[in-house]
C-alpha cells in the first residue's frame, strides 16, 4: 500500500466509480469520504451520526469491503469503486436487503438504516447463510436507537433467504 | 490535583529569592516555550506546545507573580487556554535558610484542568501535569546551582 502525501491546501481531483457510474469530484486532502459522498457527489443517503467512528451510520462499501466513511479520507477512494445505499436497487427493483427491512419493519426513524443495510450487504456477500449470532456480530458496529435490533435481524434473515434463492441478485462486482 | 516538591541550594534564601522573583528569568524555564512577551514585572504571556497523547497543540498562558514576601514566600498563578481546554495552576513557594549556609525551596502546585483534554484524557492528566510542573522546577534548580 503506497502512502498518499499531499500539501494541506491542495485541491485533489478524484475519479471513482460510484454505484456503477464514473464520477469526478474535488476534495481537500483532509476531507472525509462521508462528506465527499454527501456534499460533492450529492448522495445524502449516507449519514453522519457521530465523530468517534462508533455509530456506523456512514457505512459504505469501498472496493468490495464495508468501511465507515467517516474514518476514510476521500483521497483514499481515488480510483476505487464505491457502493452506497443509493446503489442497492437495480433498475427500480429494490434489493432484497431493502425489501427485508421494509417487510420486517427493520427501521423506524431511518437514520441508521443505510449504514445498517450496507453492513448487511457486506455480511451476506461473505456469508450467505449466517446464524443469528453472526448477523448480530456483523452489525455490532452499527448503532440503532429506535428498533432494539430484533426486527433488523429478521430483515437480514429475510434478505439472506431471498438472495440464496433468487439467482438474479447474485452479485457481479462491488 | 496537588503536586509538591523541594530542592536544596548552596545559595542563601535571599539569593534564591532574587532569582525566582524575577519574571524574565523564571519565564525562561517554562517548558515547550514557543513565544514569550514580558508585560510587566508581574505578568508574562507565553505560547507553549502542550497536550496529552494525540491531543496536542498550542496553549496560551498568562503567568503572573501573585505574592511577594522577600525573602521567604512567593506565589505564581498560571492561567492557560487552548485545545478546547483550560488550565489553572496556583503555585506557592517557600524559602527557608539552612544552618549550613544554604537554603531549601519547597513548592506546592494546585492544578486544575478543564475541558476536552480533561474529559477525554482524564487518566493521563495527572501524570502529564506533574511532569510539566516538575520540569519547570528542575530547570530553575539547575540555574540556581
Amino acid at each position, binding site marked *: 500500500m503506497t502512502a498518499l502525501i499531499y500539501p494541506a491546501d491542495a485541491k485533489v481531483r478524484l475519479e471513482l466509480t460510484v454505484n456503477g457510474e464514473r464520477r469526478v469530484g474535488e476534495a481537500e486532502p483532509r476531507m472525509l469520504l462521508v462528506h465527499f459522498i454527501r456534499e460533492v457527489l450529492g448522495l*445524502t443517503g449516507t449519514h453522519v451520526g457521530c465523530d*468517534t467512528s*462508533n455509530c456506523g451510520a456512514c457505512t459504505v462499501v469501498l472496493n468490495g469491503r464495508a468501511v465507515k466513511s467517516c474514518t476514510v479520507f476521500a483521497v483514499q477512494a481515488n480510483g476505487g469503486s464505491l457502493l452506497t445505499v443509493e446503489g442497492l436497487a437495480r433498475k427500480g427493483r429494490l434489493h432484497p436487503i431493502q425489501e427485508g427491512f421494509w417487510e420486517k419493519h427493520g427501521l423506524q426513524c431511518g437514520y441508521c438504516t443505510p449504514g445498517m443495510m450496507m453492513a448487511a450487504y457486506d455480511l451476506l456477500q461473505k456469508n450467505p447463510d449466517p446464524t443469528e449470532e453472526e448477523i448480530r456480530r456483523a452489525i455490532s458496529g452499527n448503532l440503532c436507537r429506535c428498533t432494539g435490533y430484533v426486527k433488523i435481524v429478521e430483515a437480514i434473515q429475510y434478505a439472506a433467504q431471498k438472495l440464496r434463492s433468487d439467482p438474479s441478485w447474485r452479485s457481479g462486482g462491488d | 490535583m496537588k503536586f509538591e516538591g523541594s530542592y536544596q541550594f548552596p545559595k542563601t534564601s535571599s539569593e534564591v529569592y532574587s532569582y525566582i522573583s524575577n519574571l524574565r528569568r523564571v519565564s525562561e524555564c517554562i517548558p515547550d516555550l514557543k513565544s514569550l512577551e514580558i508585560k510587566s514585572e508581574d505578568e508574562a504571556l507565553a505560547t507553549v506546545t502542550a497536550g496529552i497523547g494525540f491531543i496536542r497543540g498550542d496553549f496560551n498562558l498568562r503567568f503572573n507573580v501573585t505574592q511577594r514576601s522577600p525573602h521567604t514566600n512567593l506565589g505564581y498563578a498560571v492561567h492557560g487556554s487552548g485545545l478546547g481546554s483550560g488550565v489553572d495552576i496556583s503555585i506557592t513557594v517557600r524559602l527557608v535558610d539552612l544552618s549550613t549556609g544554604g537554603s531549601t525551596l519547597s513548592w506546592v502546585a494546585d492544578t486544575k484542568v478543564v475541558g476536552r483534554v*480533561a474529559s477525554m484524557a482524564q487518566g493521563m492528566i495527572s501524570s502529564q501535569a506533574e511532569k510539566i510542573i516538575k520540569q519547570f522546577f528542575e530547570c530553575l534548580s539547575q540555574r540556581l546551582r
Partner: protein
Amino acid sequence: MTEMPVIHGMGSAVKRKEDVRFIQGRGTYVDDISLPGMVYLDFVRSPYAHARIRSINTEKAKGAPGVVAVITGKDLQPLGLDWIPTLSGDKMMVLPTEKVVFQMQEVVGVVAESRYAAADAVKLVEVDYEPLPVVIDPKKALEEGSPIVREDKRTNHVFHWEAGDREATDRLFEQADVVVGQDMYYQRIHVSYMEPCGCVAYYDSVKGTLTIWMTTQAPHVVRTVASLITKIPENKIRIISPDIGGGFGGKVYVYPGYIVAAVASIATGRPVKWVNDRSDDHPSTAFARDFHMRAELAARKDGTLLAFRVKAVSDHGAFFGDANPSKFPFGLFSICTGSYDLKAAFVEVDGAYTNKPQGGIAYRCSFRVTEAVYAIERLVDIMAHKLGVDPAELRLKNFIPPERFPYRSVMGWVYDSGNYAGALKKAMEKIGYEELRREQEEKRKRGELMGIGISSFTEIVGAGPSHTFDILGIKMFDSAEIRIHPTGKVIARFGTRSQGQGHETTYAQIIAEELGIPIEDITVEEGDTDTAPYGLGTYASRSTPTAGAAAAVASRKIREKAKKIAAHLLEAREEDVVWERGRFYVKGAPAKYKTIQDVAFAAYTNPPPGMEAGLEAVHYYDPPNMTFPFGSYICVVDVDRGTGEVKVRRFVAVDDCGNIINPLIVDGQIHGGLTMGFGTAFMEEISYDQDGNVYGANFMDYTIPTAVETPKWETDKTVTPSPHHPLGAKGVGESATVGSPAAFVNAVVDALWPLGVTHIDMPLYPWKIRRLLEEKGYALDK
C-alpha cells in the same frame, strides 16, 4: 355484495408507507438540506463549567479564510436575544455576555463557507475566562453558601413541588406494621438519537420571511415562541420539521444553535446551516433523569400496601428548560402510586440549578413517569423481599382490580381502564414463572446467582385535557385536517411530528378505518407550520391519544357530510342510508350503494342543493382525560460471580395500549424502548467531576447497546380499550422505557438478595457488581 377493497385499517400489520424513501437513502433530514449560498455555523464552547468571561478576541477568527461572520453574546444583546424564555417559563442564555454556566456551553458562533473552514476558525477565537467555583451536586447546590449558578436568581432553588396528602400519608406510615425505605439515584443519561441536533435557517429579506428547517418535535410551539421573541410576525415565520433521525424528547428543547443560525442568516442574508457534531451534542443538549430520591413504602404484615412517600432532589442544570405542562414542574411524577390501590401518598421534589446543561425531561420519560415507575416498582420489590412474599403475589394482591375502573388514585388521576392482573398473569405464564422460581431455588443451593425481576407499571400519556394541561399557556390539544379530493384521494395534516413512530402509516390506517379508503390513497403530512394545523407536537406518547383521536373525529365529521351527499345520490332519505366501511347503501337494498369515492366526486360536481362543495374537516381534539397504558415485564438474569457481568437470559414484555392501530409498529416501539431501558440499567451514564468536567460526552465513552448484547425481546399483549378515546387506543411509545429499568434492577437485586443486598444504583456495571460480591465475600476468582 361485491368485494370490499383492502384498506389496511385499524389492527393491520401493514408495511410502513414512509419506509419507501428511507430504504433508498432518500429521506430528507436537516443535514441533507442544501440551499444556494448556504454557509455553516459552528461554536466555540466553554471548557469551564463556571467562569466569568473577561474578554473575547475574535479578530483572528474574523480574518480566517472563508469566515463570513462571528457572533458573540454582545451582538445578540441589542436584539434582546442574548437570553430567551424557556418552555418552562424560565429563561436561558443563547450566548453569554457575563459568564458561562456549564462546560461545553456555546460561547461564540462562527459562520464560514464550509464546515471545515468554520471548525478551523473556531480554534482561532480567544476567550479569556476567570474560573469561578463550580457546583455539581444538586443537593449541595441547595445548601447555604453554595456558589450561585444564576446571577438573576438569589439561590439555586428552582422549585419546590408537592403532591398528595402529607398528614394522611404520615399517619398511615406510623400505623403500618412494615415500612421499607431506599435511597436511590436515577443516573444522568442522554437520549442519543442517531441524528444530532441542527437546523438550516434562511431569512429572505425581500419577502421578510424566516424559514427554519429544524430538528424539532414541536414545530408550532417553536414558531409561536420565535415570533414573540424576534418580533417577526408569526405569519412570516415557517418552521419545517423534516425527517427526524430520532427525537425521544431531546428535540423538544430549544437550543442556542437555532437562534444563532437565524440571527446569522438575518445578518448575512444567506442560509445558515448548523449541525452538531456528536461530541458537541452529547454534553450540551438535554440530558434525562439525574434524580436523587428517598422512597418509602408502608404495609400491613399481611402484605396490604398502604402508603407511599418520596422526597427528592432533581438536577436541572443551569436553565430550567423542560417542556413541562406548566402546572407540573416535576411532570407527572404523582402517578407513582402505580398499579396499586394505595390509601395515601405524598411526594415532594426540590429542583436545583447546577453548572450543567439544561434538561431532565427527555429520553422517553412521559414527563417523569420513568422516575415514578422506578420508585414504586423498586419499593414494591423490596417490600416483597422484606416480607418474604413472592413479588408477583404481592403485586397481584394489591393491584387495582378491573371492576374499580375508572379508578381515582389518591393523587387525583382518574385511570381510564386497566387489567393489571391479566397482564402479569400472562407474562408469568409466557415466561414459565413457577418453573423459574424452582430453578432459582436449586441454583441458590449450588451458589449460583440467578434473579427474576418484575415491573408492573401504569403509564399516563396523552397530554392533555385543557382543564389541567398547558405549555406556556398553550393548551395541549392536537389536530387533524383531512381533505378528500374529487377522485377520492386524501390529504391529511396533523399538528404532531413523528420522529420514527410511523405516523404516515398509522394515521392513514385510522382514516382508512373511518372512511373505508385504502391507505395507499391517503397522504399524511406533518411538520410544516405553513400547512399543518396547530399542534403541540410528538413527545410523551401523546400522538395517538390526541392527534389520532382528532383524525377519528374529523373523519366522522366528513362521514356525516358524506352521508348527506350519498342520500342525495341514492335519492333516499338520510335515515335510510347505511354506512359500511367505504360505501353507503340503502337500508334493505345493499345492491344500491355509492362508494365514498363516488361521494367525493359528487362533493365537487353534484352536491345537494344548498350544500357547500368540498369534502373535508378539521378537528382540534381536547382529550377528556389522559390514557393509561400498562403492562407487566419479567426479566431473568444470571450474574457471573467472577466478572460481575449480568446476562439477561430472558425478558418477557406484556403491554396493553388499548386498541392497536398497527401491531408491527407497536412491537417496534416496545423493542426500542426495552433496549433503551437495557442501556439505562446496564451501561449508560453521563457523570461530572468536581471541576465540572463531563465524562461520557461522546459515543466512545457513552455506551449504548449494540446488536450483540441486546437481548432477544419477547413481546405479547393484552387489550383493554380506553373508554374515552374515539378508537379505544392509548399511547405506547414510551411504555417500555418507563417500565423496564425496574425489571432489570429488580432481577439483579433478587439474585443478590440472599447476600444482604437491597439495592444497587444503575448502571449495573460489572465492576459494581463485582465489588459488591467481594464485599459480601461471594466473588469467585477462578
